[in-house]
């Protein structure tokens, strides 16, 4: 059962990262301003994260899906918008960067989870 949820979490964050990258690289990269692009990218990513999470939540959990997926959207939106404006990578590679953001969000959440486990008790 644990593996089922790990795979589900990873699928949800990677999908959200990819979807955000596709959206951001096509619609926000034309802003010209890096700061504006990053801000818009993050906002769009968080919104995509909220909607994406609703699709995955019935199968894989509530907060455990919603929070990392929104983080994936935020990270992907920020990085892809920045990369697009600065022409770091070809557009086709932006999708991969979005998916990588999803994996990073998953790892970030997993590490944070281990740090706060059983904060206190007597």
């Amino acid at each position, binding site marked *: 059962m644990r593996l089922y949820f790990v795979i589900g979490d990873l699928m949800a964050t990677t999908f959200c990262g990819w979807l955000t990258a596709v959206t951001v690289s096509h619609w926000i990269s034309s802003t010209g301003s890096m700061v504006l692009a990053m801000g818009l990218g993050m906002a769009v990513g968080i919104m995509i994260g*909220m909607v994406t999470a609703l699709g995955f939540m019935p199968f894989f959990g509530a907060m455990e899906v*919603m929070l990392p997926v929104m983080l994936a959207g935020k990270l992907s939106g920020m990085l892809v918008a920045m990369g697009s404006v600065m022409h770091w990578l070809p557009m086709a590679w932006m999708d991969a960067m979005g998916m990588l953001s999803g994996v990073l969000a998953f790892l970030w959440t997993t590490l944070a989870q281990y740090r706060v486990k059983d904060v206190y008790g007597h």
Partner: protein
Amino acid sequence: MAIDTKTRDKWDRAATFFDISAGLGTEKRWEPFKKALFSHMDGDILFMAAGTGLDFPCFPPGMTVTAIDISPKMLEKAKIRAINYQGRIDLLEMDVQSLAFSDGRFDQVFTSCTFCSVPDPVAGLMEIRRVLKPGGMLRMFEHTASGIFPFNLMLHLMNPISRIFGPEVTRDTLNNLDRARFAILKVENHFLDVVRSIHAKAPEM
């Protein structure tokens, strides 16, 4: 006793899709933690906000439980799960903030994702303290606000939308327990510092 009709209507609306949204992945994920918490059940037990009864299969067999919920539509769905439970569950329509029980009636009170939905959580906790015997235990499975960036930011962004259709996601339940004069004995974090089991004790007198 007064019923908060706005809250009742919200959860009546939510009852239609509640088992689909909360009854599959979420319940499977939380089941081991709930079973561990409910394994402490003993004596005269009050279970708050029963919903559609998704928690009942996690109860140990043979208990006698009084379960309440504000939504009659949720309770209607909970009936079948109450009948299937190997023990006794009495379902009652009631508001957590206004309990129709005498002082010091229960040995233990259990909650499961209740205080994300009670409009005045401190008032609700004080009602629980009233109906608990002195020194009685309150055991809660709740999702709360987070103290960790960026998760706290996410929760605050979600909250305005979430509260319209269902629960609040930024509740400071530990602080609310302090305000209601419960002694917090143990907190178990299941997911970040958001999904938790909380063990608290009512004052001795």
